[in-house]
């Protein structure tokens, strides 16, 4: 389970990191890293201002 980040869309704002209920996301300078604790809950994808995240089941 994970999310895919479209790096060509992502504005590296970190909003997704703030809403992740399990802390699976991290904003490194200009990109988002997803670790293996991701539950594919989709909250990050829902709130992304530019729609850069897509949930992978």
């Amino acid at each position: 389970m994970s999310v895919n980040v479209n790096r060509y869309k992502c504005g590296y704002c970190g909003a997704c990191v703030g809403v992740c209920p399990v802390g699976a996301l991290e904003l490194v300078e200009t990109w988002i890293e997803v670790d293996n604790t991701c539950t594919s809950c989709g909250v990050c994808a829902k709130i992304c201002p530019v729609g850069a995240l897509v949930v992978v089941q």
Partner: protein
Amino acid sequence: MKPKYDVIVVGAGPGGSITAKTCAEAGLDVLLIEKRQEIGDPVRCAEGVSKEGLKKHIQPDPRWIAAEVKGSKILAPDGTEIKMSEEASSGKAGYTLERKVFDRALAQQAAQAGAEVMVKTRATGLLRDNGKITGINAMYMGETQEIRADIVIGADGVESKVGRWGGIDTSLKPHDIETGAQFLVSNIDPGEYSRFYMGEKYAPGGYLWVFPKGKHTANVGLGLLGSKSGNVRAITLLENFIKNYMPEAKILEMVVGGVPVSGPIKQTVTDGLMLVGDAARQSDPLTGGGIINAMDAGKMAGEVCIKAKEKGDYSVKTLKEYEDKWRATIGKELSKSLAVKNMLLKLTDEQLNQLAHSLKGIDTSKMPLPVVLPILFKKNPKILWELRTLFV
């Protein structure tokens, strides 16, 4: 770098830099780290502040003031305009900042007060000794190192991890975040007022703003409540607004970001750790403004660090004073704003129009928002009944 500091501040935004400066001025050993290679950039902010709030912390400097505004105009969905907060009486009118320069100036003040500053340095975890927080793991240029301190300050913004590592759940629910997009636009007439557009068509669960940034430029952006995002995106709403209402605008910069609008969270302090600013969810749930609150909180946190050092006690027993202090001041305002925001969320565009119409014939131009709200309540008790406790 020293083997051990009194205080490590994670994040060099306004909250972190003021905390670091306050501690350093009192002679504490302070390290201020910023994960980006450039402090202040990229911006994730509409850059509006009240003059009054700003002057408590720093003398206004033309190097980082992009524009001065006369006051605010709130626009109801039908276009009815409410003028507010003109400077003459309230002193509340404001500036639009150049955050890239402002944040750097604040970090420089911390540095000149004696704080060490490290950029491109990202906290990756907390160090613990028998469960007690004793510093951070930090990565610089791909290398992780241990840096020790008695107190760690999490001023690491909306994406804060420091609180979570310390056992404080700071995760935001979709209805606790505004998901925002903004363009710096040129070739427009920005006017002399900050403008706030209310209504579903602009920004469901939030508002759209036009903040003058210079002679022909403005920050035009909007915040969409996270719970209403998904099928519609902040960036799409903004692109549509520009196309329909500002076709002449040329876009010079794109800004995206999330703004915490949860209101006060349950806990911001634990043994050896305090959270400041957006990391502590101290941004205003109604306006989204967070700069002044972060700076106020940074000052309070810094002062408590000084006390903790004097006492040699870094436990929550000493640090709790920060939590009590910010709750009694910033926290109170956040709670009020949250109540008003929750009320606004329930109103239809038609009701928002009614509220605006009810102020016809009243000169609100010199009043700040806290003065206008009780008037609105008196005139519209039915619509605003839930807010009655705020105004008695």
